[in-house]
Each structure stands twice: as structure tokens, then as C-alpha cells.
């Protein structure tokens, strides 16, 4: 019995904290998993997934804390600041907290949680960080202009056959292929 428990403990230990990273899943299998999560969200909630919406709520709430007047007079911030509930008691805010947890859970189980910087061999760490920051700004602006990102627009609207979502998907992919040439030093 004791021996058995030790074994189970060892197995759990290797499963949870395995030092050597395991390979990623087959992309089609991971895609079906994602698709089922999205489908479940349609069926249970009548809405799809999202990401940037959560951060827009957080930004709007932050602006409101610093200058309530500025937030109230902006039609953009105020649309994310409901009066009937706390602005952070929001569906997408809770969903994105889940994304952070789910990602960590999966990474931990597969031994892939590691403090590192993702970059190609030809760029310095500060250089990569600058790209990550500037790219983030573009992502933030672009997603607000498009009313959604890869989650809220491409996946959610794509599967619901929204014209705007498909235009967004095509624009994202085509542009990224063009810009990839100019930032190749970062990745290759």
C-alpha cells in the first residue's frame, strides 16, 4: 500500500513537474479542442471567445480610477464602464483570467513553463523586447479598430460566417506575410 502510494506520487510528480518539455499536440487535435471550447461558449452563453475586450475593460477601469471625469466623457471608455455592476465583473475579464490559468496548467503538465525570451538567433534580448512592445501597441490599436482580435473576431466571427471577421482574417494573414520579410532578423 505504502509502496503503491509512493509510486502514484512519483508518477504525479513526473506528470506535473516533468523537467523535459513534452512535444506539442498534433495541430488538428488542438484545433478540434479549441473549436469545441468555442462551440460550448456559443451553446452555453450565446457568445464566442475574446481577449482584447478584457484588457479594454481593465484599461477603462484604470482611466476611471485616475480621472473619473475623463472616463465618463469618453464614449469609448464609458462603453466599457457599466453602472449596474463593477466594470471588472465582466465575462471577458473572467474568461481571460481563465486563459492565463489554463495556459499555465497545460504548460506545467507538459514541463514547458520556463523563464525565457522567444527570439531568433540574430537579435539581442533588448532588441526583441522592443519589437514585442511596439508589436503589442499595434496589436492593441488594430484590435480596437477592428472591434476584436484573433479570438473575438477571427475565431468567433469566422465560425459565424461574419463578413467583417473574414475580411479581418485575410488582412491579418496577408499583412503579416508581407511584414515578415522586414522583421526577419528577429525570427530567423
Amino acid at each position, binding site marked *: 500500500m505504502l509502496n503503491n502510494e509512493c509510486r502514484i506520487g512519483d508518477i504525479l510528480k513526473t506528470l506535473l513537474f516533468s523537467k523535459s518539455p513534452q512535444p506539442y499536440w498534433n*495541430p488538428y487535435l488542438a484545433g478540434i479542442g479549441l473549436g469545441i471550447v468555442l462551440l460550448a461558449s456559443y451553446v452555453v452563453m450565446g457568445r464566442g471567445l475574446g481577449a482584447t475586450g478584457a484588457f479594454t475593460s481593465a484599461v477603462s477601469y484604470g482611466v476611471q480610477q485616475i480621472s473619473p471625469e475623463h472616463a465618463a466623457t469618453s464614449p469609448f471608455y464609458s462603453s466599457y464602464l457599466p453602472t449596474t455592476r463593477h466594470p471588472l465583473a465582466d465575462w471577458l475579464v473572467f474568461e481571460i483570467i481563465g486563459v492565463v490559468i489554463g495556459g499555465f496548467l497545460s504548460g506545467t503538465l507538459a514541463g514547458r*513553463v520556463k523563464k525565457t525570451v*522567444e527570439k531568433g538567433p540574430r537579435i539581442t534580448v533588448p532588441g526583441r523586447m522592443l519589437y*514585442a*512592445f511596439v508589436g503589442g501597441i*499595434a496589436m492593441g490599436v488594430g484590435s480596437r*479598430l*477592428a472591434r476584436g482580435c484573433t479570438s473575438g473576431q477571427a475565431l468567433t466571427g469566422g465560425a459565424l460566417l461574419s463578413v467583417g471577421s473574414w475580411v*479581418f482574417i485575410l488582412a491579418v494573414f496577408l499583412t503579416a506575410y508581407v511584414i*515578415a520579410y522586414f522583421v526577419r532578423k528577429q525570427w530567423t
Partner: protein
Amino acid sequence: MNAPFYEYGFFGDNFSLVVALITGIGFGFFLERAGFGSGRKLAAQFYLTDMTVFKVMFTAIVTAMLGLFWLSWLGLVDYALVSVPPTYLVPQLVGGIIFGTGFVMGGYCPGTSCVASSTGKLDGGVNLVGMIAGILLFGEAFSLLESFYNSSSMGAFTLPQVLGLSEGLTMFLIVVSAVGGFMAAERIEARYRNGSDNPIA
């Protein structure tokens, strides 16, 4: 079965936040499983060495699209109560161009930068901070952008309406294109693949 459950009032706003958390955990889990916590793997899509982004995204779209279509055909889900994101054609085109630039520069999209951050990628964290700055920038410039942001508004506008085809036929065409795309992706990878799918390298 009356679905969407929330729309039929089976539970309230408080419980919907629990649903949100669980949904997010599933979302984040599969993003990480696919390898989307790695900026190199995501960016490799645009250097033709690893087509995982395309494969995962289109498999997910097709799965959810067909699943919803069949559930609604069986009378289990009221398709009309699932909210279709409204189309604002030109802002979404321009937004996509800016977003695509940010994607290949930053290496992540908003959801994947969360997964990257929670699995220890420091560049993912910096990317997240940049995204928050971008949203703030947009918010501060909103008075200048507002009329463009609201331009070419077309409401819930779908591909079957544009193509003049039935929903089923439109979906069939999407599935055929996806399968064709997957076959092309496999061939491209066979030609250009390097070690980017290896989480250790």
C-alpha cells in the same frame, strides 16, 4: 434542449462569470497545447517553416461552425440567439492590417500573449504591456478616430448573404477550402520545416 442556456435564462450573470472562467481555462489550455505559448512557433507561420497557426485556427473555425450548424439543425440551439459580430468593413480591414503588422513584430496575438506570459516567456509579458498601451492610445485618440471607427457599418452581415448561397453550401465551400489549405500546408512544411516545433530547441 433550449440553447444558448444563458439567453434562455437558465442561469444569471453571477454564474456566467464561473462559466467564463471555465471557458477561459479550456481556451488557454488548448492554446498552450498547440504550442501557441511560443512566439517563435507563431511567427514561423509567416516564414513557411511551421504552419501550425493556420492549421489550428481553421480546424477550430470548422469545428465550431459545423458543430453549431448541426446542433441548430437538430433543433437544439437557436442560431438566431448566438450573436454575430457586426461588420464595419473598412475599419476591420484597416484594423486587420495594423493587427497583422503587430502580430509578426510582437510574435503573439492578445490571447496567446497571455499564455506566453503565464508560461514564463518574458517577451510575452512585454507584448501584453504594449497591447495595453495600444488600447490606451486608441482610447485617448478616440475623438479623432470615432467617425472612421463607426464607418461602413453593415450590421450582422454574413458570407451567405454576400455570396447569395445557402448557409450549408457556404460552409461546405469553407470546409473544402480548409481541407485544400491543410494539404497545401503539409506540403509547404515538408519543404521548409526546421526545428521550430520542438519546445526544447
